[in-house]
């Protein structure tokens, strides 16, 4: 069950134009830096992206965006990226904006084999358009569909050769659910250890969800808003 590949370049073998990918991360926190850069280098086109955010102008998904590699984005918050806002307002990019909790649950449901479910978020707003509405316990809800992707690209702190993953602090965010929602899940980790070394009590993502894993290099871990008390 050794799932280790050499690097990001080897990890993305088979990814082709027009594929749908999920990318973990919240802002720039916990994004799969190595794999995104490999997609940039491989120049894969017409990608549909499912990601909470769209990176910043010159980092993360923002790199693919500037190179016009993205056809469509499904996200919840895309501020702090001028090129994104420009492409969206000028109609160069298809964008589905989804409430963050609904996005998270759609991904969780997709990975868990749940095709649809009901949530209150978005009732009475433009998010409701085209959706089934039902009342439960006196409150209105929208039907939302589970989401899956051809590939899920996740970033973890530690991982083992079987694909078990542990995240650090708030760098978990969307990574954990996305790992289960990718037909092929590629995990990049800061520390890669032999299986058996991670304490099973602390695994966030069981290895069953991960198909390829590699040790990432040269992590920049950019901070979007450095805010300090001194």
């Amino acid at each position, binding site marked *: 069950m050794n799932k280790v590949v050499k690097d990001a370049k080897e990890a993305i073998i088979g990814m082709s134009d027009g594929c749908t990918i999920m990318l973990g991360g919240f802002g720039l926190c916990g994004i799969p830096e190595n794999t995104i850069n490999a997609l940039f280098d491989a120049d894969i086109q017409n990608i549909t992206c499912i990601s909470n955010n769209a990176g910043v102008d010159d980092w993360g998904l923002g790199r693919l965006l500037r190179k016009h590699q993205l056809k469509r984005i499904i996200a919840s918050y895309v501020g702090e990226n001028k090129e994104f806002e420009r492409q969206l307002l000028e109609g160069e990019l298809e964008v589905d904006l989804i409430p*963050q909790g609904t996005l998270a*649950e759609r991904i969780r449901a997709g990975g868990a084999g749940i095709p649809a479910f009901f949530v209150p978020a978005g009732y009475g707003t433009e998010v409701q358009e085209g959706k089934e509405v039902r009342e439960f316990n006196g409150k209105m809800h929208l039907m939302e569909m589970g989401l899956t992707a051809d590939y899920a690209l996740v970033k973890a702190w530690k991982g083992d050769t079987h694909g078990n993953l542990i995240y650090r602090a708030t760098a978990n965010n969307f990574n954990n659910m996305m790992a289960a929602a990718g037909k092929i899940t590629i995990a990049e980790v800061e520390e890669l250890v032999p299986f058996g070394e991670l304490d099973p009590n602390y695994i966030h993502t069981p290895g069953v969800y991960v198909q390829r894993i590699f040790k990432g290099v040269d992590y920049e871990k950019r901070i*979007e808003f450095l805010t300090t008390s001194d």
Partner: protein
Amino acid sequence: MALDKNGIAKRIAQELEDGYYVNLGIGIPTLVANFIPEGIEVTLQSENGLLGIGPFPKKAEADPDLINAGKQTVTALPGSAFFDSAESFAMIRGGHIDLTVLGAFEVAENGDISSWKIPGKMVKGMGGAMDLVAAAKNIIVATTHTDRNGKSKLIKKCTLPLTGVGCVKKIVTDMAVVEVTPQGFKLVERAPGVSVEEIKNATEGALIVEGDIPEMNLS
């Protein structure tokens, strides 16, 4: 005199109760954390996966893996917990968060709120705001009473795309504390030195004023 941002945050902090789990939005709401009254314990939730937000870090201790929902570096207090985004919104959707404080472009007499999109001009996305307003038990809006051009933000009917319907319970502005009742906006407190007349003039929606309206006590 109308309150500054910190004044608004200070007034909202008076709404906190011991044991509350609270989600604070970006902007003025974040400042509420600086005014939590002494002697009560409040746990702050950040929807990117942290329960127990601590103060901003010292520069040398800033950690790129530890941010709040505004993507600012933060710290985690002893006894805090990290979790994924689905878990985070399960807390929110499941009604486990006692209070949500967020900003707004517009609030309507019926409690509708617009806060995420100005068509043709600005599209940042709703982030977690729609999930929060649809689910939290209590929602307070923190905002200036009017926008930069002097146009009222407390209006009859929202003109911008909605974030949620009939969900806002209370609005704390630089001029007043206003409750959203089944009958509409009800003035409950004035900022120090601000008259009822001034508040009425700055409120586009109908404003219910009953009896003497006390000044906020911010001491």
